[in-house]
């Protein structure tokens, strides 16, 4: 089996390698790909959209429809993971562990026992893994806000530098995932519930689609941001630039929420009790 697979793979590879001899040279400025469509984008995108980062301009404007479906793919992945993994049946464990915050003493409450009332003094912990690491917690408390600030910068500055809604959204999501890893899943779920992340994911894509629909209602083609010019009170070219920003924010929201949603469901296998 292994040998057959190896031979097929090598044969297939050498066949494609045979094809590469007719490829244009690597990095050749005269290759068809560099001569046909891309000069238009490079030379005109600044004049058309007032966005210096050509990738952002092409991504969110010229090929904005692709990007809308890219966001939808991500949303579909979040929805699919929820659909596949989430189990709503709660298994009540007989014993619950609580830790006294200031002393670090762990108490084990058997079934039917009275739970500690004052939840600020006691925190519930998991039997498999008990997060109690001052250094990690403090570091994360320091790092997470800066990560989020950077993520917002990436979203907002996508017009002028590498970045944009997608990258910023992933970084925002990663900051929440970091919170979930450094603390535990349950306390993260208290800050940002699954319902919130699901609704935010759908809302993010809705912002994108809604922008397109708005253009359509204003009489232009779907996702033709120029139609927004009267609403935004700007010139038609700046309307494209602003339209891209709105759309990028939608992408950022959706991607952040889906990354968190994916993590919630995969790290707890859909049970939402104990994370990593």
């Amino acid at each position: 089996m292994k040998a057959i697979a190896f031979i097929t793979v090598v044969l297939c590879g050498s066949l494609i390698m045979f094809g590469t001899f007719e490829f244009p040279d690597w990095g050749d400025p005269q290759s068809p790909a560099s001569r046909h469509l891309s000069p238009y984008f490079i030379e005109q995108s600044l004049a058309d959209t007032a966005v210096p980062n050509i990738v952002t301009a092409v991504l969110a404007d010229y090929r904005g429809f692709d990007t809308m479906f890219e966001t939808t793919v991500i949303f579909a992945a979040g929805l699919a993971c929820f659909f596949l993994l989430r189990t709503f049946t709660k298994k009540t464990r007989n014993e619950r562990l609580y830790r006294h915050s200031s002393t670090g003493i762990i108490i084990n409450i058997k079934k039917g026992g009275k739970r500690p009332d004052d939840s600020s003094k006691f925190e519930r912990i998991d039997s498999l893994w008990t997060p109690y690491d001052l250094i990690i917690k403090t570091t994360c408390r320091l790092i997470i806000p800066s990560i989020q600030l950077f993520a917002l910068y990436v979203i907002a500055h996508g017009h002028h530098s590498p970045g944009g809604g997608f990258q910023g959204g992933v970084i925002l999501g990663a900051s929440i995932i970091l919170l979930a890893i450094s603390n535990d899943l349950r306390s993260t779920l208290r800050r940002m519930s699954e319902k919130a992340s699901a609704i935010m994911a759908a809302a993010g894509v809705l912002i994108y689609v809604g922008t397109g629909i708005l253009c359509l209602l204003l009489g232009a083609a779907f996702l033709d941001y120029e139609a927004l010019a009267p609403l935004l009170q700007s010139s038609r070219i700046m309307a494209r630039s602003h339209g891209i920003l709105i759309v990028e924010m939608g992408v950022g929201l959706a991607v952040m929420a889906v990354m968190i949603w994916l993590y919630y469901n995969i790290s707890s296998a859909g049970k939402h009790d104990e994370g990593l």
Partner: protein
Amino acid sequence: MIWQLDVIILTLVIISGIAAITIKDLLGAAILFGAYSFLMCLLWAIMGAVDVAFTEASVGAGVSTVLFVAAVFQTTRRSQD
């Protein structure tokens, strides 16, 4: 761009790719896959695809690895091949 750097990173990418699929510990495979993604991201940065490199760094080396590790924790580390 500097072709020596390019060749070195390409070799490293291929080595880490082979390592990721041959190692018997799935957690190790997940981490090696993260390394593979990160080297790939460097390669794209060298080629001038900064946006793609940025995305790969945050998605491939970041979130994908976390998801892999999470899935491995939920299943098993053992692998026969």
